C-alpha cells in the first residue's frame, strides 16, 4: 500500500444484479449504517415465480428512492459519501446497467472514487457483516438461484474458483421442483418446510459426484429424476417425502463437496452464503458433518444470505483502499 492510500469513511454501495434493488452505507469498512432492499419476490410469488414486468424497469423506478432511503437511514447526506461501490457483474445486463449507471453518475457528481464489484465475491465476503467471522484463507460456497460455486477466498481481493454448477443452480432446482409439485414460489422455503414431515430416504434421487471435476456441481439430473418419479406415481403424491428426499440429495452434495474442498486444500474454515444458505437442513448438516471433522462453519445472517448491497460495500471498501477504481468507460458483464 502506498502512502496515498485512500480509506473511505462513508461508502455507498449499490446492487441491482438480478431482482433486488439495494443500497447500503458502510462506515469505516465495518459498520453497516443502513441496508435497504426492495425485492420483486413478493411480486414473483403472486405470479407463481414469473417476472411479470422486467426487473430492470422496476429497478429504474426504485433506484432513486432506495439510495435516498439508505442515506437517510444512515443519517448521512450525499455530500458525506466519499466512495461508491456497485455490482458490475455477473447478472442480467439490463438490471446491472440501472445500478451501474446510477453509481457512475453519483460518483462523478460527488467527485468520489467508484469501484465495480463482482456479485459472487460480495456473497463470499458477506460473512464479515457480522461479529463472528472466519480467518483467511477459507472455503467459500455460494448457493443461490443463479449460482452454485465453490471458492478459496484468500483475502478480500483474491478468490480462486474451484468448481461450479455445470447446469442448474441449487436454488433453481428448488424452484423447479416446487413447480413440478405444484407448490408456490420461491421453492426453497416451501420445500424446506414441507421436508420437515417427510422421509428423506423415501426416494433415492441421484447425487452427481462428477469424478472428473469433483468440485463441480450438477443438479439437472436430480431435477429430471424428480420429474420422472412424479410422473410415475398414481394417486396422491407423497409431497413431503419427495421434498425431503430431494432436499437431502441437494444437501448431501453441497456438504460433501465443501468438506472435500477443505480437505484437499487443508483449509479449516468453511463459509456458506447465498439464498440457499438460509436452508435450515443445509445449515444443520454442514455444521454437524464439518465440525465432526474439525472444520469450522460460518453462515451469514439470513438478511445477508439473499442479495443485498451491504456485502457489495465490504468488497468495495477493500478494493478502493487498494486503488481498484474503475474508469469512466467501464461496462457491466453478464458472465464472469
Amino acid at each position, binding site marked *: 500500500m502506498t502512502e496515498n492510500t485512500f480509506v473511505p469513511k462513508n461508502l455507498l454501495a449499490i446492487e441491482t444484479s*438480478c431482482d433486488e434493488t439495494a443500497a447500503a452505507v458502510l462506515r469505516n469498512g465495518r459498520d453497516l449504517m443502513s441496508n435497504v432492499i426492495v425485492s420483486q419476490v413478493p411480486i*414473483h410469488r403472486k*405470479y*407463481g*415465480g*414469473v*417476472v*411479470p*414486468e*422486467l426487473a430492470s*424497469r422496476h429497478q429504474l423506478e426504485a433506484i432513486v428512492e432506495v439510495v435516498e432511503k439508505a442515506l437517510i437511514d444512515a443519517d448521512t447526506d450525499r455530500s458525506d459519501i466519499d466512495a461508491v461501490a456497485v455490482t458490475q457483474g*455477473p*447478472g*442480467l*445486463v*439490463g438490471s446491472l446497467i440501472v445500478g451501474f449507471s446510477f453509481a457512475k453518475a453519483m460518483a462523478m457528481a460527488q467527485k468520489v472514487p467508484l469501484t465495480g464489484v463482482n456479485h459472487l465475491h460480495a456473497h463470499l465476503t458477506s460473512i464479515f457483516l457480522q461479529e463472528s467471522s472466519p480467518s483467511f484463507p477459507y472455503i467459500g460456497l455460494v448457493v443461490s*438461484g*443463479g449460482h452454485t460455486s465453490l471458492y478459496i477466498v484468500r483475502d478480500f481481493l483474491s478468490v480462486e474458483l474451484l468448481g*461450479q*454448477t*455445470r*447446469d*442448474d*443452480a441449487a*436454488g*433453481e432446482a428448488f*424452484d*423447479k421442483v416446487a*413447480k*413440478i409439485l405444484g407448490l408456490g414460489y420461491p421453492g426453497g422455503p416451501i420445500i424446506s418446510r414441507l421436508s420437515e414431515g417427510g422421509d428423506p430416504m423415501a426416494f433415492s434421487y441421484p447425487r452427481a459426484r462428477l469424478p472428473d*471435476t469433483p468440485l*463441480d456441481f450438477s443438479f*439437472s439430473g436430480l*431435477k*429430471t*429424476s424428480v*420429474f*420422472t418419479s412424479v410422473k410415475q406415481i398414481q394417486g396422491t403424491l407423497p409431497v413431503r417425502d419427495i421434498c425431503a428426499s430431494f432436499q437431502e440429495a441437494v444437501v448431501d452434495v453441497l456438504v460433501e463437496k465443501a468438506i472435500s474442498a477443505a480437505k484437499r486444500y487443508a483449509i479449516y474454515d468453511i463459509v456458506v452464503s447465498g439464498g440457499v444458505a438460509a436452508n435450515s437442513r443445509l445449515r444443520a448438516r454442514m455444521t454437524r458433518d464439518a465440525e465432526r471433522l474439525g472444520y469450522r462453519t460460518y453462515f451469514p445472517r439470513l438478511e445477508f444470505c439473499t442479495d443485498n448491497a451491504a456485502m457489495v460495500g465490504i468488497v468495495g471498501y477493500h478494493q478502493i483502499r487498494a486503488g481498484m477504481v474503475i474508469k469512466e468507460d467501464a461496462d457491466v458483464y*453478464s*458472465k464472469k
Partner: protein
Amino acid sequence: MTLRYLLNGIDDTNILGRCLSESARPGDILLLSGDLGAGKTYLTKAIASGLGIDTREITSPSFTIIHEHLNGRIPLIHVDLYRLGRHADITEIGLEDYINGENLVVIEWAEYSDGPLLEQGLKIDLYLIDEEVREVCITARTDIWKDRLLELDGCMGKK
C-alpha cells in the same frame, strides 16, 4: 418440414449439437421447447462445444435470463424465457439487440414468446421419453431453413 430423431443418451445429443453448430450461421435463432428436464440446456452445451466454447461456461440461464458467450466461432447468446412466463415480452429483456445478424441466439422455453420476432427461428422440440432417451423434432417454417434442414439431416446421417 420436420426432422425427427430419437436420441439415445447424451452421445446422440452431442452429435445433434455438433451438427447444429456446424450448420449454424451468424444471425440464426434456435427455439428450444420441452418439459423441465427434457435437455434444453444440455443441447445448448453440445452446440456451444461445436462452436469452440468451453462447455463448463454453459449453465441454465433460468435465473439470469440471458448469458453471453462471445469467444466461440460465432458469438452465442443463450436465453431462457422460463421466468418470464407465457406471453413473454422479449423486447423488455433487450433480446432484440442480440438479434442483429452477428450472433447465434438459442432460446429455451421459446414457446413463451408469441411475438413475430422469433418466427424466423428454427423450432426444436425436445421430449423426455425416459431418463436416458429423448425425442427431438426440428421444424423449418421458412424456405431458407428447409434447405438447411437437408444439410443438417445429411450431417446426422454421417455420424
